[in-house]
């Protein structure tokens, strides 16, 4: 499936922030390509994983500067197209699910109205059609009572409900490509599974490309097909998810080993030794 032309091609992506205190290089020379598959990006805070996702969608905050030898989505050069066209693409054919539904949904609009707004921003459709489509989508994310959730304000929904509503909102325009930035970190372990299962099914059914950004190596490797491990803005290693045990890079191994395991783990836990040479 992924043998066709890749959906997304990233070559030598750099994100820099020119600050008073000097230049911060958040992402340094990241390259990968994505077909209709699930790619995981793993790293600790500050590894540049979220900035990579944001740069692809053109969401790098103002002082930031994005450069790349190549950044194309379905053959469209994302760095040179007009902002207006990029805005149409974003939210339409490529979307992003953020970490915390509490902060990323509009608190003064009902979930339903937000979904209608999202749909009508990208499709020529009446309110009625948008409403039907939204309800359908809420049902697809396994809301027990879509009509009720539709009329709720974000603060009236639980974390898991809010996150599912956000997934529904992001998928209502039938995108080809989705970035999920820590979509389950704010959720309970049990709810997490449910949300991931929904995401997994929708991605598989619709043949979407997915980038899943997380700090949880275990979770990512069990969910994705391939994993990129990032540290200090650089890709340390790229692995097939099943080959995690065969990881060679000391950073990947360190990340794996420092997690306590249910079956028992070393006392004390091995901690990560960081080698400054990795970021050279």
């Amino acid at each position, binding site marked *: 499936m992924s043998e066709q032309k890749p959906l997304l091609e990233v070559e030598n992506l750099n994100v820099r922030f020119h600050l008073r205190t000097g230049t911060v290089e958040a992402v340094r020379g990241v390259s990968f390509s994505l077909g209709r598959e699930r790619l995981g990006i793993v790293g600790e805070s500050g590894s540049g994983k979220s900035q990579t996702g944001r740069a692809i969608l053109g969401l790098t905050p103002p002082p930031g500067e994005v450069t790349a030898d190549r950044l194309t989505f379905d053959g469209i050069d994302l760095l040179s197209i007009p902002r207006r066209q990029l805005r149409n693409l974003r939210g339409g054919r490529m979307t992003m699910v953020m970490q915390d539904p509490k902060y990323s949904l509009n608190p003064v609009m009902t979930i339903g109205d937000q979904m209608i707004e999202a749909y009508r921003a990208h499709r020529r459709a009446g309110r009625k059609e948008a409403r039907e489509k939204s309800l359908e989508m809420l049902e697809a994310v396994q809301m027990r009572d879509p009509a009720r959730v539709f009329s709720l304000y974000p603060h009236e929904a639980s974390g898991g409900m809010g996150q599912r509503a956000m997934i529904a909102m992001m998928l209502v325009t039938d995108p080809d490509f989705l970035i999920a930035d820590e979509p389950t970190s704010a959720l309970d372990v049990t709810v*997490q599974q449910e949300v991931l299962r929904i995401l997994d099914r929708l991605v598989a059914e619709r043949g979407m490309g997915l980038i899943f950004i997380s700090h949880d190596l275990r*979770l990512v490797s*069990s969910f994705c097909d391939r994993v990129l491990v990032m540290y200090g803005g650089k890709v340390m290693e790229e692995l097939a998810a099943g080959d995690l045990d065969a990881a060679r890079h000391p950073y990947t191994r360190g*990340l794996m080993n*420092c997690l*306590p395991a*249910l079956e028992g783990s070393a006392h004390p*836990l*091995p901690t990560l030794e960081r080698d400054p040479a990795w970021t050279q």
Partner: protein
Amino acid sequence: MIDIRDLSVVFGSGRLRVEAVKGLSMRIAEGESFGLVGESGSGKSTVLRAICGLAPVSAGTIAVAGKPVPVPRNRAFFATVQMVFQDPYGSLHPRQTVDQILSEPLAIHRLSDRDRRIARALADVGLGSSFRFRYPHQLSGGQRQRVAIARALILDPRVILLDEPTSALDASVQAEILNLLERLRAERRLTYILVSHDLAVVTHLCDRLLVMRNGETVEETDTEHLRAGKAETAYTRALMKATEGFTRAAPASTE
């Protein structure tokens, strides 16, 4: 060391009445590390807050070191029991230096020799003296949590209540904090109650644990039992499975 019997915590009244903890009992021996596991809203943090007097106890008894806890909690109580909170970004005063943060409990408890005590507390949690006059925003998440642990330790308590001490931290930093907690407990014969939603963390640090849901006890078990796959309830097994990573429900959806 800690004996809780039929503890109930009720917030609000009438239509807004919420029973956060319903008739919970547990006994924790001195020097033991005990885990409380559950999802958000299960009442696990409320139990810790009730022990400290931060949540209203509506029924049941709490005894620490053989004596029922005083109401309101007095200084002697807090010299025995200290708490470390979840979010190191929220639990340290942003306008106080580490030195001021650590002086406060000493001032409240009228302890002398502050200089030496602060230096020792910092050294105990693996922070050098160079951290002493920094503000919280000049520290990383792991360093802040170390300061919060130092603040709890500075009074030489016998019991430390840990409310999700590592859930706001990166995996590698979590390992460092867990190692620190384990070392401190071994060195000082501390008693821990650790609240977490992560079974792997709890089984790493604790021998016995209690699974909670909706304010009720689901199961009281120990790490050995869980590792041998002898969880009694379906809920505990679901939690265990969730800890191990994502599993596809319908195998048909995988290629």
